[in-house]
């Protein structure tokens, strides 16, 4: 009889634990939960140079990583109050849906079905990308259209997988896809000669190429076969949190546009420019409307920097990837980064 009692007690505790977890998962008060916890749980890549990768000391770097740091700076005035959760492409949405993470900043393409059926809200595009191919130079290919009949290594659970199939179908080419759960495995198999080409977003190709045994033997083909707007995402159902995540990116873009940098942000606090004053919180109470402090954008720029600084540091000229701004330049410099005004 005793054992039955023990079992009932066990079942009850387990059940209660399950409830606790599921109940917190769907709370609409993400900001309150995050503040109470003291850290943001940020779903990150973990294996992609330039976007999300821990270095030798375990310190995370990357464009998406800095996005989460900016979010932490805005909320806590401390960019280090982030717990990075490394996720594979395949597991990332489930992690966000189930509440394991508060925000997903993992070079994730914004698509209609993800925005609707998957229950996600994409905040703002923090990197405009497109899909490309990497091949061995020894194949002497000039175009992706010459890839008929090729074997292509690809990571599972990505828009890449679908674009690849579409591209070959549209161009009436035969295809052999070899699909792997992680980008690591896919690149390794490509490097070992299992595939003729490796395909993923062009930004990632630049980083992956540097990790190959003989980087110079490989080249990226000129074709970009898709639109990949990469955007941080949150769950449906919490508008306040959605706004905060969205405007964290806009604050960084606006700061760049107004010439506010990590170095000069303290001087800019004395600026007379009304746009600068509203952004940095020296005029108006725009931060409070988000549930944050009025100097939220100041904190972001002070701790992390503006969008241009973050870009150059992680993927641009200040990084080994040396990716040009291209589509990611500000709208007034020929790019697509355009943020609504703070007012």
């Amino acid at each position, binding site marked *: 009889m005793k054992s039955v*009692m023990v079992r009932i007690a066990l079942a009850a505790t387990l059940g209660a634990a*399950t409830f606790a977890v599921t109940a917190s998962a769907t709370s609409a008060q993400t900001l309150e939960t995050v503040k109470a916890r003291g850290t943001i749980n940020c779903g990150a890549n973990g294996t992609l140079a330039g976007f999300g990768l821990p270095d030798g000391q375990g310190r995370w770097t990357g464009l998406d990583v800095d996005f989460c740091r900016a979010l932490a700076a805005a909320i806590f005035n401390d960019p280090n109050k982030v717990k990075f959760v490394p996720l594979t492409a395949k597991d990332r949405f489930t992690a966000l*849906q189930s509440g394991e993470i508060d925000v997903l900043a993992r070079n994730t393409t914004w698509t209609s079905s993800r925005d609707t*059926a998957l*229950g996600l809200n994409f905040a703002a595009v923090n990197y405009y990308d497109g899909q490309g191919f990497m091949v061995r130079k020894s194949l002497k290919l000039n175009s992706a259209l010459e890839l008929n009949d090729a074997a292509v290594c690809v990571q*599972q659970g990505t828009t890449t997988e679908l674009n690849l199939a579409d591209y070959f179908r549209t161009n009436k080419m035969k295809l052999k896809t070899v699909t792997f*759960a992680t980008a690591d495995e896919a690149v390794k198999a490509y490097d070992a000669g299992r595939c*003729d080409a490796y395909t993923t977003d062009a930004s990632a190709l630049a980083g992956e190429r540097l990790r190959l045994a003989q980087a110079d033997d490989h080249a990226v083909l000129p074709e970009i076969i898709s639109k990949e707007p990469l955007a941080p995402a949150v769950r*449906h*159902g919490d508008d306040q949190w959605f706004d905060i995540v969205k405007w964290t990116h806009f604050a960084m873009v606006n700061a760049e546009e107004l010439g506010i940098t990590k170095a000069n942000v303290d001087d800019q606090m004395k600026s007379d420019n009304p746009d600068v004053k509203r952004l940095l919180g020296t005029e108006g109470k725009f931060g409070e409307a988000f549930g944050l402090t009025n100097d939220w954008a100041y904190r972001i720029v002070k701790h992390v920097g503006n969008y241009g600084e973050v870009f150059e540091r992680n993927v641009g000229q200040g990084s080994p990837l040396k990716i040009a701004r291209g589509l990611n330049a500000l709208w007034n410099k020929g790019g697509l980064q355009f943020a609504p005004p703070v007012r």
Partner: protein
Amino acid sequence: MAAVETGKAKTPLWRDAKARGLAYQVLLCLLIAFFAWAAISNAVENLARAKIASGFGFWDNTAGFDISQTLIPYSTTSTYGRAFWVGLLNTLLVAGFGIVFATILGFLIGIARLSRNWLVARLAGFYVETIRNLPLLLQLLFWYNAVLKTLPPLHESLAIPGGGFLNNRGLFLPQPVLLSGADWTFVALAMGVAAAVGVRIWAGRRRARTGTPLPAFWVLLALVMVPPLAAFALSGFPVTFNFPESGRFNIRGGIEVLPEFMALLFGLVIYTAAFIAEVVRAGILAVAKGQTEAAYSLGLKPGPTLRLVVVPQAMRVIVPPLTSQYLNLTKNSSLAVAIGYPDLVQIFAGTVLNQTGQAVEVIAITMAVYLAISLVTSGLMNLYNRHVALVER
């Protein structure tokens, strides 16, 4: 109890061990039912609140991705449902081949470990102790890299006599295509098998009656093999081969065996065989030594002793744990995801889940499928076990 016997005072219900036990069980069942209901309704409510799609409507939507090995026709315009069947068949394919080869290898190793030859026994022991103490995932990654790294690239393919190729894109073999007239071969094969079964039964009865054995094996083999071969030759060899041909990037045509399949099969067979070897060894050791001695004293030679006396008795001990090894092999095949073999988990619980975002439904289906495969396997093995089990007379 004394009170009940005298009938003077009834035991109060709460002190009756039987009633109390029943009450606890009912309570437990109610609790479990409540938790199940709470969990399900909670999940449904949360999904609805987060506006996440639910239900099984995705089944007929276009999948849009490519799969490297398809046993049934599949294209990128096929549905998610079709992709599910492709994945399931790929799982069954590797599990089926895996079980057959692991059984053969496992029995060989298990018997070798009992060999009187010192070297053979030690080698078998070394194999078992090494393989079963290394994680399977590690072994699969090892075999995959070993397969990819040792095989030559496409343009240095090893030619296999008869028109096949072997390279790091896979094994390519000529595919036989049957022409009209080939039906007679199958008719002859069916007749041969029927005749062999008849002879086997007759030979068994004759041996039981007279004690004279028939050289049954060779007779049976001839009965099965000769008629179809004769029919094949008489109908003018009605077969042609679809030979693999080397293209610019890949080899097309013929039968293609993916390196992922080879690595997975290799890894699963080698790993599971180590466990089966131990099961077999235990089974044989469980047969009392007196049985062997009795067989020898009746004049049986070591071969027939093993075949007729020891193995039939050992099977009773071997079959139940062997069943769990078969189940393990099937379940372990889901590690395919690590090396890019398109099994059920990789295709359905991987890509389909990710694209539809319907984790609850997809995982539930996947678990139900593995449960069904396991129950069928263990059901079949239980039937066989009943056949070999000790029949008490």
